[in-house]
């Protein structure tokens, strides 16, 4: 089960990355970032069997940072929606070349 769950975490990370690259909806891109964070958590939980319980403690910190990041990111999305009436990243071109 050790190797299989490492491969699964790699797969989930890659799927999340593909979602960020493929979608234009800012909220869905944000959910894909959460999926990538979860894949990293799965790697840490898997290797905690051999490196000790410290890896699981690291997962707790990753979860906390993910929660804080979700709150701030969604606040930014709400603020952008007020300005453009859309969450499509094609409309956010102020800083694009």
């Amino acid at each position, binding site marked *: 089960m050790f190797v299989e769950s490492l*491969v699964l975490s790699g797969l989930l990370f890659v799927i999340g990355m593909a979602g960020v690259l493929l979608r234009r909806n800012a909220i869905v891109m944000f959910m894909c970032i959460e999926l990538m964070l979860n894949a990293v958590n799965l790697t840490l939980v898997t290797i905690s069997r051999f490196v000790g319980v410290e890896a699981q*403690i690291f997962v707790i910190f990753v979860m906390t940072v993910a929660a804080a990041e979700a709150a701030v990111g969604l606040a930014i*999305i709400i603020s952008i*929606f007020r300005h453009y009436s859309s969450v499509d990243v094609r409309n956010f071109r102020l800083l694009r070349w």
Partner: protein
Amino acid sequence: MDLAQVVFYFSAGLAVVSSITMITRKNPVYSAMFLVVTLFSVASIFVLLGAHFLGALQIIVYAGAIMVLFLFVIMLLNLGHDFEPDVRGRFRWVFVGGMALVVFAEIVTALRTIPESAGTDLLTPWLSERGAVAGVAEPLFRNYAVAVEVTGLLLLVAMVGAVVIAKRRA
């Protein structure tokens, strides 16, 4: 093949299928629902790997709190209907597919350096001695107490920042 392996492969398949479904649905509400399914499968894999407390935490924090926040924002912005298709075009799919293969190969190569058979099982005796919660809580509040305090400060800053950013300009 014992029961744990059956549950593992079922959860792993469910996680992969529902995450692929998540990135291909047009409706963001469906995407959020499939992300909840993925998070639940990953939580059951956490339990199978011996991280019982983190499995519970995953369901409470991710599926309970973060996903409710996402759904709240989707409903608040009224994105559940008359959405335009936002998946990028054919050329982009090929590019992303190739890139995903390369990154996956890289991840597998990096993870192969983790020695599997060399290490002894450190987790099971630790947790059976202290229990699922105390085994995590003891080093968390003893060796990592400063990090816990800093994380609390981070949550405070994030809360204040979210309120300030999302506030309507007067």
